[in-house]
């Protein structure tokens, strides 16, 4: 789960990481009030779950009320990489003496945590990595040992952080590490981490991705989840526990397993069509999940045909077939469907499907063959 900046700052605060307090608002007048409250000069920051806001003009300094109103009006509703800005965060502008970059993530290859600290912050870290790699200190952290005081001090020195700021930065590093580990984050990134003119260290931004698999031990994440912005289809799918991403094509996709679902998108594209969604039923999905998936796709008006591509492992094909049967009884499906079913209990699944076959529902032997038919049906349009 990618947090908005204001959620990330709340997350940081739980672990003692110093951040700016601010106000979250949804309209320009409220932004003016917020700016007055935090004090001018203030910063108005677009809240979207995507990087590159600054470059897109989504972060602006305002010196008075008129400017706050104009800027908030311009930013609210802005489209940043496909994300519409529905809310802005207003905070008092910080007096910046120095800008750094810091992140914690898991290095899959090394199977350890990786901390990056750069004395060049406020810019794209990828650029720094290319132009001045020495500015970035990298340290791997063994999960069993954690980040020690000595190690934090060493990283800070390695990154050539200004001598007087080192103890303060090291302290924030340890707090961020604690947030990363105890908070079950996949990523914690601060760009920039600033030294204020009064010498205090401060996280000016907060980019946090939480590990959804760990949500069972973090009931407090529910509040974050409640504020997420999903499109209608995605919200419905989430409420039904499905792994769904809305796309803009006309062929609805239901598959089991992320890999097969992605491959299904690939073959649909190769057959000349475009997927309307990515939908992974997940492992061990039963009849209910299948019926829910069809219901969710049924709400997507762009869908002209559906391709159900199942290869049973832990998922049992007879359950999938029962789900299709159930969905047909429960909702009025508006699209034709092509089903490819192989793997665990495929024979039993096909026996159930045989009783359902019609103009609307057909079974195909191969994935590539089924994709071609789904694309053809989608081009013809709904029945």
């Amino acid at each position, binding site marked *: 789960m990618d947090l908005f900046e204001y959620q990330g700052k709340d997350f940081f605060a739980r672990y003692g990481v110093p951040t700016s307090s601010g106000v979250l608002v949804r309209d320009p007048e409220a932004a003016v009030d917020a700016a007055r409250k935090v004090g001018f000069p203030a910063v108005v920051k677009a809240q979207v779950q*995507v990087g590159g806001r600054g470059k897109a003009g989504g972060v602006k300094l305002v010196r008075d009320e008129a400017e706050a109103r104009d800027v908030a009006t311009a930013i609210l509703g802005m489209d940043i*990489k496909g994300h519409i800005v529905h809310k802005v965060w207003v905070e008092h502008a910080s007096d910046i003496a120095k800008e750094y970059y810091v992140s914690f993530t*898991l290095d*899959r*290859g090394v*199977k*350890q*945590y990786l901390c990056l600290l750069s004395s060049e912050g406020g810019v794209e870290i*990828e650029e720094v990595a290319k132009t001045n790699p020495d500015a970035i200190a990298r340290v791997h952290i*063994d*999960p*069993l040992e954690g980040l020690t005081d000595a190690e934090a001090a060493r990283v800070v020195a390695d990154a050539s952080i200004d001598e007087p700021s080192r103890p303060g930065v090291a302290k924030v590093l340890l707090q961020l590490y604690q947030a990363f*580990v105890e908070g*079950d984050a*996949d990523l914690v990134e601060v760009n920039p981490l600033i030294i204020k003119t009064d010498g205090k260290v401060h996280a000016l931004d907060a980019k946090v991705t939480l*590990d*959804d*698999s*760990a949500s*069972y*031990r973090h009931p407090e994440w529910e509040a974050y989840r409640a504020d997420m912005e999903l499109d209608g289809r995605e919200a419905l799918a989430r409420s039904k526990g499905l*792994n769904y*991403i809305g*796309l803009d094509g006309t062929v609805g996709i239901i*598959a*089991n*397993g*992320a*890999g*097969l*679902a*992605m*491959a299904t*998108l*690939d*073959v*649909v*594209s*190769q057959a000349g069509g475009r*997927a309307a969604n*990515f939908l*992974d039923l*997940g*492992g*061990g999905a039963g009849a209910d999940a299948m019926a829910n998936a069809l219901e969710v796709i049924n709400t997507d008006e762009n869908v002209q045909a559906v391709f159900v591509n199942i*290869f*049973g*492992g*832990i998922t049992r094909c007879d359950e999938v077939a029962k789900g299709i049967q159930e969905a047909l009884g429960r909702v009025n499906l508006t699209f034709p469907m092509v089903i490819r079913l*192989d*793997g*665990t209990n*495929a024979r039993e699944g096909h026996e159930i499907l045989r009783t359902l076959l019609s103009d609307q529902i057909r079974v195909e032997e*191969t*994935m*590539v063959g089924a994709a071609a038919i789904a694309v053809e049906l989608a081009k013809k349009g709904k029945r």
Partner: protein
Amino acid sequence: MSIFVDENTKVIVQGLTGNQGRFHGLRNRDYGTKVVAGVTPGKAGTDVDGIPIFDSVKEAAAATGATASFIVVPPRFAADAIIEAAAAGIAFVVCITEFIPAKDEAMVASVLRRNYPGTRLLGPNCPGIISPGRCNIGITSGDIALPGGPVGIVSRSGTLTYQALYELSQKGVGQTTCVGIGGDPVPGTNFIDCLAAFEADPETKAVLMIGEIGGEEEEKAAAFIKEHVTKPVVAYVAGVTAPPGRKMGHAGAIVSGGHGTAQGKMDALREAGVVVAVNPTEAGDRMVEIVEGL
């Protein structure tokens, strides 16, 4: 020969008394795998269809001489189950559990590296391993695999593992071993481990590799193939059409900042001499051509 497991491998199932454990444990046994014991704390002395249950892996291993374990337990118990198996001296641990927090996986990797270097973990969040006709540990449907070699399969995606097996079996090309390494952030066994084992296995004549977007595992595998693999390799990388910046499922497949794209991975593999296919079916077809030419 096969890699990691063979017809003599004795397997215990941690979680055999659960729904999934029972279903897949018994299916593995039906396939011919030597499933010798189950482990569920508090249920020692009972049995599942004649398979004795023990309270701990240590007791089960001592009583049966098992060297492999199949873990089918819920996410919150999985990390402990893996470490328990390793501590009991189990050399090969297959964990199919999905949704284990990444932090737990990183911790397990660290414990195994330090304290139990003799234990190989496959997974978590993987379909397991099948050496057709000899041994099946995991959730792969045995009837889609074809005994009699000559192709080794390694795949990051569960369902695409089955798809790969199926494509080859349909065309009459058998497999030595098929390993699903799983798509989680911290896999116990990776492409390189499997490629090295296939390279060393005299029965394996060619390798089919299935990757996906995200991470750098395919790029690393490409570098390894270039240096160390003499056998022909065919690859498919899923997610060419995946929209950038969106996480495609829990598999950890995410494309960001131009890294880990399907295209980048395919280019690296192609550059290493791998035959790269655009979908699983084409990968199967290319492999059939290669096998026919052997």
